[in-house]
């Protein structure tokens, strides 16, 4: 028995795992907040999707770690959203405006862009499905090379314009 316990502890220590009791407590806290406030978890899920679709237009966000929850204490109920940002898309707001106008002007050129797609379509890695596999692997190896990521991210998540595309490819070649 004691040996068993020791083995369990060692294993957990090696794996750097949190004790399951802590996980249970945290999960319960969140579940009960939703239950008690009476918000249907489905509502929170679709809110999460909508928020994600909006946010990915401006930021490259960490989808997996994004938290959307309703918190309640004695006085108030609040929507708390925590979105880790991987990279800024790094463009001036006017770029977006111009882009939007450009997109309507050249509808026929637009391919399905990740920003419009639902976040559930397996977009865990930022540019999955894009043809720039080379640049993707290179930026995973050097996550600090933000300068190379900015144009790439922009390319992968906005309407394809010749200028951004070329910007992305030049950046990826410079980073490798």
């Amino acid at each position, binding site marked *: 028995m004691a040996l068993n316990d020791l083995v369990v502890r060692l294993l957990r220590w090696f794996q750097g795992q949190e004790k*399951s009791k802590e996980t249970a407590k945290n999960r319960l806290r969140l579940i*009960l907040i939703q*239950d008690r406030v009476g918000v249907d978890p489905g509502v929170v899920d679709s809110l999460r999707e909508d928020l994600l679709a909006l946010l990915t237009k401006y930021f490259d966000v960490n989808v997996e770690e994004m938290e959307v929850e309703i918190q309640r204490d004695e006085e108030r109920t609040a929507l708390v959203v925590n979105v880790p940002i991987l990279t800024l898309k790094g463009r001036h707001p006017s770029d977006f405006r111009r882009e939007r106008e450009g997109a309507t002007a050249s509808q026929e050129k637009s391919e399905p862009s990740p920003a419009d797609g639902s976040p559930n379509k397996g977009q865990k890695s930022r540019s999955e499905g894009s043809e720039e596999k080379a640049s993707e692997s290179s930026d995973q190896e050097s996550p600090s090379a933000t300068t190379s990521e900015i144009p790439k991210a922009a390319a992968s998540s906005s309407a394809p314009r010749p200028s951004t595309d070329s910007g992305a490819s030049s950046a990826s070649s410079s980073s490798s």
Partner: protein
Amino acid sequence: MGRPIVITSGKGGVGKTTTAANLGTALALLGQKVVVVDADIGLRNLDVVMGLESRVVFTSMDVIEGKCDLNKALIRDKRAENLYILAAAQSRNKSDVQPEQMARLVKELEQQFDFVLIDCPAGIEQGFDNAVAGAQEAIVVVTPEVSSIRDADRVIGLLQAKGLTEPRYILNRYSPRLVEQGEMLDRSDVQEILAIPLLGIIPEDQTIIASTNRGKPLVLEASTPAGAAYVRIARRLLGEEIPIPEFREETGWSRFFRMLFGRG
């Protein structure tokens, strides 16, 4: 006037029937006149857990439908003085009984008994409404697991809305070893979340399986950690102040000595 107490949980399989059988028996052994009512119509098993299945002739349904006298439907458990059960109909549905009918039945039982323990079915639908209808007090059985606590929380809200006296809870299947390893929510974690009075803790106890195999509630057998815990809870229900002990994993030797000498 007796005390009608519903034993409920929301989630199934957390120990409501085990608790009803053991608390009922323990209270009777302490000199109370007790009836345990199986409110799980269609899935009755209180009679089986108590080893009385061969004695079921009439059920609460027969009483409600006027097919037999209440006293004829009560099954006496000969192992304790003044212990009775009222079985549930097996071949009927929960919707065959209305809450008002159940409330009337419990009222009638209150006249004769010190305690009317009502073993509630799982769920929060009609079966729950029926079981709660006649009750004035409630005991919520919960295990230290996320799903059980979540359901308990829901049920506590429903009970409070129905205007019963503040429910108390029993923390069942508590494993000191897992708690020590950090792999089970401990009593303070559960208390913090449920925030209603704790009536007692029943440790995880494998002898419960043997006791249900035999149809003999634990509190009738040689003392086991869970049996002793049920007796303490029965005493607390009677108003005695008995602190809830810290549970520790039983060592092989203490178990050996308990089995050798332990009784009562």
